[in-house]
């Protein structure tokens, strides 16, 4: 077969490797035989590459795939994120414009949180301490014109001082560099002259968009993790060669695309949420193939729940993400994290209110039912007491102690509130679900989307336990549980396309634009995108370039991206403005057609289509699912226990139908079907749940 996208697909084995905090998941998909193998090994946080190769070798052994048959490896890891969360990035320096040396110290002069505690909040450590920040005499105006030339002598001295402080990477972020990168580029050259091995990160390259604090922070983060990520990826590359594997490796991006190893080394800040991006992409893709392009995915784990909307099979992106205390303005899947998961602690507060979270029992001691010394009840304990989870998890590796769970709930919840243990446990579930409903509504109002128009796709260990009830609360009619909710991220990697985004802030009022200049700059961005795709080995026929303008009402501080043709003319701009008014109305409930519309940023997305694993539905068999029944047990639903059929998911066949109440068990998660709800197994092995009103 021919080379497609520079990737050899002769033997068609795709491998996705997702290194998470606890487990490393490996998915091996043989596109010829259509066999899918899943492997889970423990992660090795001290040396993640070790876990990578351990997982890879286990997976190859288990699947019997030969090394030479591997067409492509797609990889995502927590290396970049952990470096930030644990403060283990590199020693870096920062150059700013004179007068703005304290840019990071000031930030947006904002204390996070809605009703904030000004007495207690402490300013987090900056990633680059003030000792290693230097300001250089230079200044550009908002339009990129020169106000004050760069003082090269002063700049050399500043760089030399930073290098004396043993910095490994240098971030350079000057005012208005998005409008004109000339001074940043010159500083980069000077730094390379002085220290050829220095990692350098220019804000005009990482994120050429206005808002100096956010751009600088993103650039600093990029510099901070650059050496760490580069070393890690070099170890992966070397290890693969050592094992005789010469397949290209692609790295998952936080915007649900992938990029080459080389690109990832230059822009590691684009990989900070690769795991969740894989999960969201996997959920969106599988649901779209099954006929549901618009979904809300719900990844409920031990300590928190990630919510993400996907429209037309693509996860929505946001440029307003925070990693720990730091804003990251590059496009990242639009995830909202809710501080409630299976391990969330539950208690009765000083005024007799039942509270859940935000504290979590974590993995250790874990919920009371783990029997590892956890005293306070958790959401998992409540599910267990209600019979909604089996006593054995992970194929029997973990046994849960129902009695401990009952005792914890009795002591800490039921007795203080004078309820039965079941009522208390059910109360915990109601409070958790209500909290998620509220969070989902905030997500929706912020995005201007009605969640009732969407299909809910729950995954993660606890997602399918709560999904059906949450869907009912929200008013969602359909829930889709994918076949492998536990390893969706790694699978999602296999479904992603090569992607990168090129932006340029150019503020101008529609109707008063120098169109020639805008088209020249747009063409340059498109060229840049095409060149990048060529560099990534994408054949011309597999390339796509999408152009959008971030528009806002004049003087307003928020923008909406609106798609436009690659060449702008008056008609195209008028159409874009009209669509902006419509989109504003749709999202925010009002628009102001009499206010002029401004272009803020030109946005060009480069896409390189990678061949996808073939997904075709298996023929549907009969409706009778009784062959999959493994047990009958009492499960508590509203007001009492119901005898409930328990099914083994691996024995369900396409076309099978199940009426609720029912539990569907699989190795890493349980799907709860409530009374009055029903489900059907589709040709792809998804559970399609119909939620009754």
């Amino acid at each position, binding site marked *: 077969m021919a080379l497609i996208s520079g990737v050899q697909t002769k033997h068609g084995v795709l491998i996705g490797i997702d290194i998470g905090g606890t487990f490393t998941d490996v998915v091996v998909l043989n596109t010829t035989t259509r066999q899918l193998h899943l492997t889970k090994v423990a992660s090795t946080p001290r040396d993640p590459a070790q876990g990578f190769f351990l997982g890879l070798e286990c997976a190859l052994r288990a699947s019997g795939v030969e090394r030479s048959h591997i067409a492509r490896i797609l990889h995502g890891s927590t290396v970049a994120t952990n470096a930030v969360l644990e403060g283990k990035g590199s020693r870096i320096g920062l150059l700013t414009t*004179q*007068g*703005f*040396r304290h840019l990071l*110290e*000031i930030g*947006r*002069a*904002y*204390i996070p949180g*809605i*009703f904030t*505690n*000004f*007495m*207690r909040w*402490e300013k987090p450590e900056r990633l680059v301490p*003030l*000792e290693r920040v230097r*300001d250089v*005499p230079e*200044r550009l*105006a*908002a339009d990129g014109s020169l*106000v004050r030339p760069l003082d090269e002598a*002063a700049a050399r001295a500043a760089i030399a001082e930073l290098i004396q402080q043993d910095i490994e990477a240098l971030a350079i972020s000057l*005012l*208005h560099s998005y409008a004109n990168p000339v001074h940043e580029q010159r500083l980069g050259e000077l730094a390379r002259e002085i220290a050829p091995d220095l990692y350098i990160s220019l804000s005009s390259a990482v994120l050429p968009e*206005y*808002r*100096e604090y956010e751009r600088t922070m993103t650039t600093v983060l990029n510099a901070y993790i650059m050496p760490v990520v580069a070393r890690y990826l070099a170890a992966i590359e070397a290890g693969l060669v050592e094992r005789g594997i010469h397949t290209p490796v692609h790295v998952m991006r936080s915007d649900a695309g992938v990029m080459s190893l080389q690109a990832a080394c230059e822009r590691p800040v684009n990989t900070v949420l690769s795991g969740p991006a894989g999960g969201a992409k996997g959920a969106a893709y599988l649901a779209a193939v099954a006929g549901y392009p618009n979904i809300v995915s719900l990844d409920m784990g031990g300590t928190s729940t990630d919510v993400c909307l996907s429209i037309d099979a693509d996860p929505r992106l946001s440029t307003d993400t925070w990693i720990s205390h730091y804003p990251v303005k590059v496009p990242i899947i639009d995830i909202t994290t809710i501080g409630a998961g299976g391990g969330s602690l539950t208690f009765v*507060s*000083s*005024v*007799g*209110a*039942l*509270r859940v979270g935000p504290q979590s029992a974590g993995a250790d001691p874990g919920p009371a039912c783990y029997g590892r010394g956890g005293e306070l009840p958790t959401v998992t304990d409540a599910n267990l007491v209600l019979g909604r989870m089996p006593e054995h998890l992970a194929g029997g590796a973990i046994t849960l102690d129902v009695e401990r769970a009952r005792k914890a709930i009795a002591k800490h919840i039921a007795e203080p*509130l004078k*309820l039965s243990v079941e*009522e208390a446990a059910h109360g915990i579930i109601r*409070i958790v679900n*209500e909290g998620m*409903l*509220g*969070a989902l*509504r*905030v997500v929706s*109002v*912020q995005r201007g989307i009605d969640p009732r128009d969407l299909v809910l796709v729950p995954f993660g260990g606890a997602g399918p336990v709560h999904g059906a009830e949450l869907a009912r609360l929200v008013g969602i009619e359909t829930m889709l549980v994918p076949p492998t909710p536990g390893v969706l991220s790694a699978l999602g990697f296999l479904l992603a396309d090569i992607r990168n985004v090129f932006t340029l802030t150019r*503020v101008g009022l529609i109707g008063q634009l120098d169109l020639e200049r805008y088209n020249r700059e747009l063409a340059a961005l498109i060229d840049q995108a095409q060149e990048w795709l060529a560099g990534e080995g994408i054949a011309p026929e597999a390339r796509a370039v999408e152009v959008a303008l971030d528009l806002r*009402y004049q*003087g307003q*501080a*928020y923008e909406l991206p609106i798609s436009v043709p690659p060449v702008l003319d008056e008609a195209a701009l008028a159409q874009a403005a009209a669509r902006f008014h419509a989109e504003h109305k749709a*999202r*925010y*409930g009002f628009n*102001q057609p*009499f206010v002029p519309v401004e272009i803020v940023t030109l946005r060009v997305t480069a896409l390189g289509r990678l061949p996808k694993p073939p997904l075709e539905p298996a023929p549907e068999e009969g409706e009778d699912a009784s062959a999959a029944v493994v047990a009958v047990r009492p499960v508590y639903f509203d007001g009492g226990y119901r005898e409930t059929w328990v099914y083994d998911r691996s024995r369900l066949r396409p076309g099978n139908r199940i009426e609720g109440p029912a539990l569907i068990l699989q190795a890493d998660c349980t799907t709860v079907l409530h009374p009055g709800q029903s489900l059907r197994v589709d040709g792809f092995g998804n559970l399609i749940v119909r939620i009754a009103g």
Partner: protein
Amino acid sequence: MQTDSITIDVIANGLKSLIYEMDAAIERTAMSIIIREQHDFGMSLVDHRGWVVTGTAFAGQTLAEYAATRPVEPGDVIMFNDPYLSHGEISHLGDTMVAVPIFWEGELLAWGIAWGHHMDIGADAPAAMPTQATEIFHEGLQIPPVKLYRQGILNEDVLAIVARNSRTPEMMVGDTLALSAAGKIAEKRLHELCEKFGGAAVRETFQVLFARARETMRRLIALLPERPLCFEDVLDNDGITDEPLVIRMTIERKGEKLLVDFTGSSPQCAGPMNYPLNPSLLKLRLYNLLRLAAGERINIDPQLDANQGVEDLVEVHIPEGCFLNPTYPAPVSLRHLVSGRLGEVMQAILAQVFPDTVPATHYGSLNCYSLLGVGRRPEDRWLCFEVTAGGGGARPFGDGIDAYCFNNRLKNAPVEFVETVYPVRIEQYSLRPGSAGPGKYRGGYGLTRAIRVLKAAKLYFLDERQRTQPWGLYGGRAAAANDAYLVRNDGRIVQLPGKFDHLPVEPGELFVMRTGGGGGWGSPYERDPEQVRREVECRLLTAEQAREWYGVVLVGWPPKVDEAATAALRARAPVVHDWVDRGEPVAAPGPNTFWELAEPPEPWLVITEPVGTSRVAEIRDRERSG
């Protein structure tokens, strides 16, 4: 109780969620940067009597009175900004309240309310903050409670009047509609809760939430001693008369109740520094502050909202004729500065009882300025308005917050945003060295912001704590006060008073604000010398300040701590008797007084040579050599 406790909590969480949803909606739909970026807005759910159930602090007596005297129907939306008709619930004209009555089964159940600070509502100065007003009629359009919507139909005539009275009519309309839409969200969600659980259960939940707040407040009050606790602080002046304004507050626990008394505070003033202080709102503030200061001692439920369940536990006495209880039509437009200082006074009172949790005070201003373009063409009449941060007070466990705004939710506007929208260039935006109050834990650093005006404009400014220093606590020292300057094109440096309007500024002139720091906490001689050394290396302190303020002796560059000399100096640490250090009076120009300086104050700007049309450094050099 008719409804089970779990259902009550499910409803209570639903109410909290609707507030978050309103919050998100306003932030995303309002137009002015004061609301969107600087978060000067709030939203609450209020019961049929006008009592706040949950959300940001507000009192709804106005709404209750409106509903008692005039028909209110589903689909109506009420709006007002009148401080006197609203009993100070809205306390200056810049804030507009929009309230949506929520009916269930034919009865008024609640109100969904949202307020925001508009960019402009007319008045003698932009942003609704004239500093020279002597009557409320000088402060902009007064809107008594009127119907913005009548049974679902927008009253376009009202909106037209409001728009016509604003320098920024589109924003005025956009913001008003955004607030109204947020109120509608409350209505929709409350209806859903009523459908699901019944109106009775929702009403019962309101009662439970009031009872929870009351019970929590009762336990908090019990922590206070049964003796008068008092503190007094001053505001510089009212912008017109050169007299300080005194806030004197005394609180005393009497059994289960708390008495609050403002006897001894200054009388009503001529300028706009009067503050129609609403007693119910004050109670909510006290409750919030007590929760922060002492909540941990009673293992407080961290998710409780403030609501008016606390109403009967506190009695407030504000003398007639006091500037905190002004008589119509006294001007009130700068009342937020008074409100801020009042918060400091309350903090100082609680610091006497809870020394282990309450911080020293912050910079004590909001450093608001407006630049209004002048010229005959519409595009010449641009309006740039900003609020600036200062230093936060040091805490008993750690340093104060640098670049902190005491309106917690406020965010500064990015320099690159301001410069793309307005004809200004911000040449320096940095921490202000030496401004933090020294202490074992230092206060936060104030800021220096230097704004070059590129087109002819008029400057409006309001500032506070130019004449007194932000106080430190328990050995911590007072911090630098606020000040501001205008560097004229002819090189003169003019120190500006705290409150003025209409100052003509030529293109090229430079407006410089230096905002105050936060007070320190604990003796500076107990501060880790390494922390002091770091700040000298980072040029936030000088070596002299390290020695004089902290007893830390440094040698060489980069500086090193001379341990022996430091120990010797620290052995002679001064003895501090007072629990509060108010520092010294600070010289600053009085109302309508502008001081020409012989040389710039220290520390001045870091810009090493002229930027654009700047002649700052040149002037400085000339001054020095001369």
